[in-house]
């Protein structure tokens, strides 16, 4: 079933000699076929916004004293917060995989005289960074070091 795209989509600056039918959205947009992954990718924006504010609240509580900080730890134990963080983890991993997949081809062929590394090398470096930082941060937060 067709639906209208923006009424001015691909419109020329001057109208043609005959009337035109309005532009139609692709049938599968926004939740069909490949568009689903794209729309979900954009929707993770909500997850990231919430995560950013949750970390902000946690840090604010840390600066407000022990009772406030313990309140954060207590709050995080509720089913709602655990459920949210489980969904957020899936979302974050999905974003990483999709974005890292695209990242190598988005590097220009050169920046001044400097050429970026070959695409497989860039991909390997990204995953090494991700896994390395995740492991380090997890160990630190879990009390493994420091």
């Amino acid at each position, binding site marked *: 079933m067709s639906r209208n795209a*923006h009424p001015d989509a691909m419109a020329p600056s001057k109208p043609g000699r005959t009337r035109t039918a309005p532009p139609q959205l692709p049938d599968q947009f*926004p939740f069909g076929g490949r568009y689903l992954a794209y*729309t979900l*990718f*954009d*929707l*993770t*924006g*909500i*997850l*990231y*916004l*919430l*995560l*950013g*504010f949750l*970390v*902000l609240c*946690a*840090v*604010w509580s*840390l*600066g*407000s004293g*022990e009772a406030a*900080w*313990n309140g954060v*730890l207590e709050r*995080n*134990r509720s089913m709602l*917060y*655990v459920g*949210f*963080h*489980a969904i*957020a*983890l899936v979302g*974050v*991993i999905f*974003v*990483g995989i999709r*974005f890292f997949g695209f*990242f190598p081809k988005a590097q220009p062929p050169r920046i001044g005289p400097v050429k970026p590394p070959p695409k497989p090398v860039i991909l390997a470096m*990204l995953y090494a*960074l*991700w896994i390395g*930082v*995740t*492991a*380090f*941060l*997890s160990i*630190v*937060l*879990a*009390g493994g070091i*420091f």
Partner: protein
Amino acid sequence: MKHLLLKLEPLIWLLFGQGILLGTVLLTGWVLVVGLAIPLGIVPADALSYERAQMLGSHIIGRVILLGLIVLPLWKGAHHMRHIFLDFGGAKRDVLVAPLLYLLAASGSVLAVVAIVRI
């Protein structure tokens, strides 16, 4: 307002791009441990007791990481929410919605600095 948005676009895109890259890289460990492992008891809660959290958070590297953990996801989130709005036919109101979303991210970023200084 449109002109201001256009002028700021490279900076917003940089923050958004790093929000995806570094934000994702930093968030994974935080969500795993603070969001799941400690609440579920997989990691003992005293790993992030107030004293230890204070010690980690007040170190200069800790502060930088916490700044990244707040600011980067906020800009990624704001920019992607703007895209969602546009993808669902919101182009006419973008001139209102975009500044609101970016102001949200900016406010959060300013509060992040204050919060980190307070540790």
